[in-house]
């Protein structure tokens, strides 16, 4: 009896020691997280209910007023913000659709070959790993009035499609051009996700349909595509997340121009926060930033649900 009691006490002591060790091991990560994650997010949350120009010591409480001003009331800002919402939505639809339309066929074809497969996969991956300022500038150069894209179009006899003021200089072509670059740098991720998905497909199902006489196209539409649906869902969510959150490309290639035709919600947040094209209003910036964060949280919820339904 006594020894048993001592054992549970010993076990309890060991358990307590395990807790202390565990907490000590996660402490550095948690400390960083609390300071640079929780605190900053909370700070932005509080600030979104105030107006503040960043210099004066006073914050002015406006409640949900910022939201109303930004999206509806302000004669200058509201149209700008609504335009940004529209552009963001266009990207959020076009990016997943185009990325899937290109990366799925590529992955299926890549999966069907043996020769050059590794080499091609490496090449396809380059746009993803180098995505950043250097590649965005290369595309900017190609989109110039006398840049590569215009010259190629002229040489191919499609000179009518070329843009005299450059693809990024024309408000009608700037957003499509940026979407093209975004798709270009996201296709590698799509190919990788689909390749992984294809390799885990149940071979017997595909084989059975082949024996039943289904042609390659029919196999793709009736068997492979439905089986890949969870993978596609994941890809769609990642692309929508990119559309709402990514703004580096918009900042580095057009700064939202010409005539705000490539302004997005994230870029508008940046402009309000850092006074790009106007004086900064940190309350306004936080309001749009938090709107984006709520959208992101909803997407996260959808992600977890779709991932759970996969198992």
């Amino acid at each position, binding site marked *: 009896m006594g020894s048993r009691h001592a054992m549970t006490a010993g076990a309890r002591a060991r*358990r307590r020691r*395990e*807790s*202390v060790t*565990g*907490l000590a091991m*996660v402490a*550095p*990560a948690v400390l*960083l*997280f609390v*300071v*640079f*994650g*929780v*605190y*900053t*997010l909370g700070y*932005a949350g509080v600030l979104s209910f105030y107006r503040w120009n960043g210099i004066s010591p006073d914050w002015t409480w406006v409640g949900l007023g910022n939201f109303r001003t930004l999206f509806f009331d302000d004669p200058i800002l509201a149209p700008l913000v609504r335009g940004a919402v529209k552009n963001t939505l266009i990207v959020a639809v076009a990016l997943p659709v185009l990325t899937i339309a290109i990366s799925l066929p*590529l992955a299926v*074809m890549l999966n069907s*070959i043996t020769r*050059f497969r590794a080499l*091609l*996969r490496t*090449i*396809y*991956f380059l*746009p993803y*790993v*180098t995505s*950043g*300022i*250097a*590649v965005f*500038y*290369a*595309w900017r*150069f*190609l989109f*110039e009035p*006398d840049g*590569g894209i215009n010259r190629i179009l002229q040489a191919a006899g499609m000179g009518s499609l070329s843009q005299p003021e450059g693809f990024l200089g024309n408000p009608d072509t700037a957003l499509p051009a940026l979407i093209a670059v975004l798709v*270009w740098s996201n296709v*590698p991720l799509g190919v*990788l996700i689909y390749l992984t998905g294809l390799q885990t497909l149940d071979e017997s199902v595909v084989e059975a349909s082949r024996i039943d006489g289904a042609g390659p196209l029919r196999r793709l539409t009736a068997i492979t595509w439905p089986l890949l649906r969870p993978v596609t869902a*994941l890809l769609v969510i*990642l692309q929508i*997340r990119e559309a709402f*959150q990514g*703004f580096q490309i918009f900042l580095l290639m057009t700064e939202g121009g010409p005539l705000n035709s490539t302004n997005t919600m994230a870029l508008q*947040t*940046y402009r309000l926060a850092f006074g790009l094209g106007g004086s900064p209003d*940190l309350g306004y910036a*936080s309001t749009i*930033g938090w709107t*984006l*964060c709520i959208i*992101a*949280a909803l997407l996260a919820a959808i992600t977890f649900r779709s991932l759970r339904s996969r198992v």
Partner: protein
Amino acid sequence: MFSAPSTSRFRSRLDGRRALVALLVYLPLLAYAALSVFPFLTMVSAAFKDDSEVTSNVGLIPHNPTLQAVKVTWTSLDLLVYVRNSIAITVISLLAILLIFPLAAYAFALLRFPCRRVLFGLFVALLFVPAITVLLPIVLLNDKLGLLGTRWGVIFPLVNGASPVALVLLRRYFESIPRELHEAARLDGCSEFKVFTTIYFPLARPALVAVAVLNFVGIWNEYVLSSVTLSDPEKFTLPLGLQQLLSTSVVQWNVVMAGALFVVLPVVAVFLVLQRYFVAGLSGSIK
């Protein structure tokens, strides 16, 4: 009697069909490969053209290849300073990431402590917080802490930003190691810390390399946070240096492209050497 010629005719028709299928498969694959490398080829070709040729000749092969643009970039940019700063930020961040998160992932995988699940869930949720939402508060916080304008003002947020993917990948790796190993080492009298440093950390090498490569690419290319944190050109990283090249009044694309090459080449080299880990890490983090 006529079965032999008929099969051979059948086979040749089959061969023809197979060749056609191969053509239909390889043609688009190669076309997309060309599109994938096209901007890089543009970079290389423009970097070796002179000031007039870069606007007049859009062909990929320079008529008069010259090192002039590369030299201008090298001298006008204080390139060595930027390279050194980029390396400093990347190396310190990676070291911190490889020190802090394996330790935490080990605890999340093997130890029982209060709030374990909630904490891990919060780290994963961080993945969905848009960078732009916290960018401004980070700058204000850096200012308060006296980090604004310093390397640490870039490093701390970048390291924190690496936590979700690093923790998910490393915890899964540690959980895949048979638990008996942990128990046996503990029974032998090793402390948790000793089990971690002598057994689990060395065993996790593939996952550690994957985390390192994924973050190397992201940190080396990082532009937005550095641009709002660093103001002294002496502290600029390569992407900020490159940005300066384009903000001059007359843009010389051959010089800009030469600068872009300096940014891109290390990433491409690391990717080519460690691609296996990179792909494994990326597909592991999205699964």
